[in-house]
């Protein structure tokens, strides 16, 4: 292949300033202080590393934000998704209808559009004071917005999994719980949910990974996560192959860690004597 390309994997390394004969990039580069790209000083983590070039730090910072945004979003996803999922199985029609509407709205609108709506539209719809507070006073508004948006988008998917898990449990289990005097709430708490969470660990795992991957969409509203930082490095160095390879490996590492943790959880809560429940 006749491609002219200057491979330089070393841009991804942290070379100490003294050892680096080039020392070319000034410490005032964007991302580590200025506001030329992205939103400013608050956006890049101070990793404490003393490097000749900022790129290593940018990758680490981006990865950190990816993990933080995705993890926080997952907390929303898991709790809200559980509530909505349970609501879709209760007897009360109104509750069921609200939960169904939630799922259909959040599942059927593209994530990118939702990101824009949360960031640009919602603050305008809120009462003036609240809107101004979000835009002016809330530190790092794009990060909070991304967390809420991702969390609520994925909650609709988790809700469907929780619902499917509950509905896969034979009706007799509910009957047995009720027949011994448990209230419906207790039946959910002690019987239906513990069993259905075990059943849905595999789809929950892929959804958790999905949050990590989808967090890259947040770059569109200015969140300096891994993909955004990679793009920034690519723009500065033109070493696109190296930097996006690094980003790819970072995402894969994170999702592999998620898979490993979930496998551990799955094995841990597996019901003795079963293959179908909890997996093997």
């Amino acid at each position: 292949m006749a491609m002219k390309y200057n491979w330089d994997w070393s841009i991804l390394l942290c070379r100490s300033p003294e050892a680096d004969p080039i020392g070319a990039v000034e410490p005032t580069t964007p991302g580590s202080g200025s506001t030329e790209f992205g939103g400013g000083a608050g956006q890049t983590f101070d990793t404490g590393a003393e490097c000749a070039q900022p790129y290593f730090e940018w990758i680490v910072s981006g990865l950190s934000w990816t993990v933080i945004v995705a993890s926080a979003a997952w907390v929303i996803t898991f709790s809200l998704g559980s509530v909505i999922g349970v609501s879709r199985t209760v007897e009360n029609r109104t509750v069921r209808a609200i939960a169904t509407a939630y799922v259909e709205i959040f599942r059927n609108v593209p994530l990118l559009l939702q990101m824009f709506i949360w960031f640009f539209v919602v603050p305008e719809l809120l009462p003036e004071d609240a809107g101004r507070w979000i835009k002016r006073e809330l530190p790092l508004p794009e990060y909070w917005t991304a967390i809420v948006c991702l969390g609520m988008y994925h909650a609709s998917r988790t809700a469907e999994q929780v619902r499917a898990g509950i509905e896969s449990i034979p009706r007799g289990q509910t009957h047995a719980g009720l027949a011994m005097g448990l209230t419906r709430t207790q039946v959910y708490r002690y019987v239906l949910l513990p069993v259905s969470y075990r059943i849905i660990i595999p789809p929950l795992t892929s959804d958790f990974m999905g949050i990590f991957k989808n967090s890259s969409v947040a770059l569109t509203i200015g969140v300096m996560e891994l993909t955004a930082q990679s793009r920034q490095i690519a723009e500065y160095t033109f070493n696109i192959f190296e930097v996006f390879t690094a980003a790819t490996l970072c995402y894969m590492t994170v999702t592999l860690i998620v898979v490993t943790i979930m496998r551990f959880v799955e094995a841990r809560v597996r019901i003795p004597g079963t293959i179908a429940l909890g997996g093997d």
Partner: protein
Amino acid sequence: MIEIENVSKWYGDFQVLNHCSTAVDKGEVVVVCGPSGSGKSTLIKCVNGLEPFQEGKITVDGVSVGDKSTNLPRLRSQIGMLFQNFELFPHMTALENICLAQTKVLGREDDEAEERGMKLLERVDLVEHAAKHPAQLSGGQQQRVAIARALAMDPIAMLFDEPTSALDPEMINEVLDVMVELANEGMTMIVVTHEMGFARKVADRVVFMDEGRIEEDATKDDFFGTPRGDRAQLFLSKILEH
């Protein structure tokens, strides 16, 4: 103790129960039989309110089941129920299954519940299986744990919904034996079953249902001696042939 008066129930247009009336006295054992789809299971599920019914009245120990003001969980906690598929909770050990409602419904302390649970496991001859999960037990063992779980609530009456239908033949007797013992101790029981041997041995009365109607409601001797209706005769001849 249990009065069922003129109970009718519909699923949409389909009538599953058609003016059913019968009564069960304290200490009485009533066997309910009939072809599948005749409404037997539905009827006993109405007794503890698991299935709602549109017409008629059911009272248990003077409490009306269909009444909106009735505290159903409280009423149900006094009526033990056994199911065709045992319905043990798969994520709990045998002992935990027996303790759950004791602690959450009756408010017993953990050690008190466990002590009671172990006693009942001893009674159904499963002490060494206390720490096993349902999937590690045979069907017969699971149903005996389920019986222990029901007994732990000190029920005033027990409902059995085809308790041996899902069991392999060699396991049926270990469950029936426990049920016979209960009957002999004076437990009030309504038993939906095809086990006519059990009915002959311990039933006081036999109720025969067909198409949502109670066709026969007779003492055991009358029922097996001279069933009045053709349908009951046909049914009996079919299941007694073997």
